[in-house]
């Protein structure tokens, strides 16, 4: 594989692989991707970060949601080459030193997951959302969660977990 220089304005031709470098969960990573490779596939197949799940591949289900430069978005509607030089955070980066984050612990406490397929994406949305809206109303949480499909929980325990984390964080500050 030829190591391409990623200067803006330079074409990355179809049918060849290109080197994509990003910071995944705080660590520099690189791998090969075609220009058409979706970020979701790049994460799972090239970088081995299989915590991010792939559901519908057209932006509806929310399972593949990751944070790009901190902002929650669909990795199935993002090209791998678009994250070159950027920060990508996935569910693997939430726990610190083997300890679940407060958000993950709340999901566990409230039984906010059953099969867990949708959970990785929901956690990444919540992580971004709670930084921007630290004291959300239940309606705001439900609006944010409307971008995710969960077929197990009926959402109520997820809403409770998110509100619980927000309340705990506000108490501690």
């Amino acid at each position, binding site marked *: 594989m030829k190591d391409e220089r990623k200067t803006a*304005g330079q074409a990355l031709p179809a049918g060849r692989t290109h080197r994509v470098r990003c910071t995944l969960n705080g660590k520099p990573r690189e791998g090969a991707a075609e220009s058409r490779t*979706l970020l979701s596939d790049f994460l799972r197949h090239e970088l081995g970060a299989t915590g991010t799940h792939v559901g519908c591949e*057209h932006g509806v289900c929310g399972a593949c949601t990751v944070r790009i430069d901190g902002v929650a978005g669909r990795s199935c509607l993002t090209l791998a080459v678009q994250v070159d030089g950027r920060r990508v955070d996935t569910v693997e980066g939430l726990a610190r030193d083997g300890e679940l984050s407060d958000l993950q612990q709340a999901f566990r406490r409230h039984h906010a997951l059953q099969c867990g397929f949708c959970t990785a994406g929901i956690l990444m949305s919540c992580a971004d959302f709670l930084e921007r809206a630290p004291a959300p109303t239940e309606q705001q949480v439900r609006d944010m969660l409307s971008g995710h499909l969960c077929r197990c929980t009926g959402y109520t325990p997820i809403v409770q977990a998110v509100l619980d984390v927000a309340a705990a964080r506000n108490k501690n500050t």
Partner: protein
Amino acid sequence: MKPAAFDYVRLEDEAQACDLLARHGEEARVLAGGQSLITVLNMRLAQPSVLLDVSRCEPLDYAKVVGGKLEVGAAATQASVEWRPGLADEVPLLACAFPYISHFQVRNRGTVCGSVAHADPSAELPLCLALLDGEVVLASRRGRRTLSARDFFQGMLTTARAGDELIACVRYPLRAPGTGYAFEEFSLRHGDFAIAACAAAVSQDAIRLGVGGVADRPAVVQWPRLPRHELEAAINDFAWTLGAQDDAHASAAYRRRLVRQLAARAIATAAARAQGASNEG
């Protein structure tokens, strides 16, 4: 559900976009937020040979008030406009409409100009642009031209943009004094495509109503302030002019019924807000 192969170019600025659009024309597609485009690429409904990515063009990533309008550059995300602290004062209609646009995660990456470029008949941002009589600025190596929303939207997913043109920015007029705005939408699920959507602006002497999701493009009508029964008749007549079609989601009759309900509600809310605005003034 994977895109066909294409060349990819990450652009730095508008001039580079115009050069490459002049070279590739219709073979190229402009990638901004990708929230509609990558979907259709994944489904292979579109197979462009080149993708020109404007999403990291810093000079195009802005929203600012210029000459009585909120101007939004090609790379600015919907979220960047939605989370503007002053949006409800600047363009209240947009503040009303954003919550109906897909979901938080999609608005984070989707752009305002991209939605206008895509011109889905049920999309909220084109409807707001049409209702407010906003502008689309098209750039190419031939120069810049500014079109009114009325001239820009030409049909289902069809606009006046030529193959070598980039939507450099769109301009939403700021709130008019003494005018109230409202947005109402019905869809099968929250954030889903609108089956019908109504935007209204009501001032002391005029009612402006826009309808999305029914005709092949946003449809706008303007009336003087009418008494209730005349307004109901006018809305009904307008609903019949939209050429509603039966499809898998709703019958034409149901769509007309939605238009009657949503329009009446939007106009009533906008009128109440206009009253509030003039009391404050």
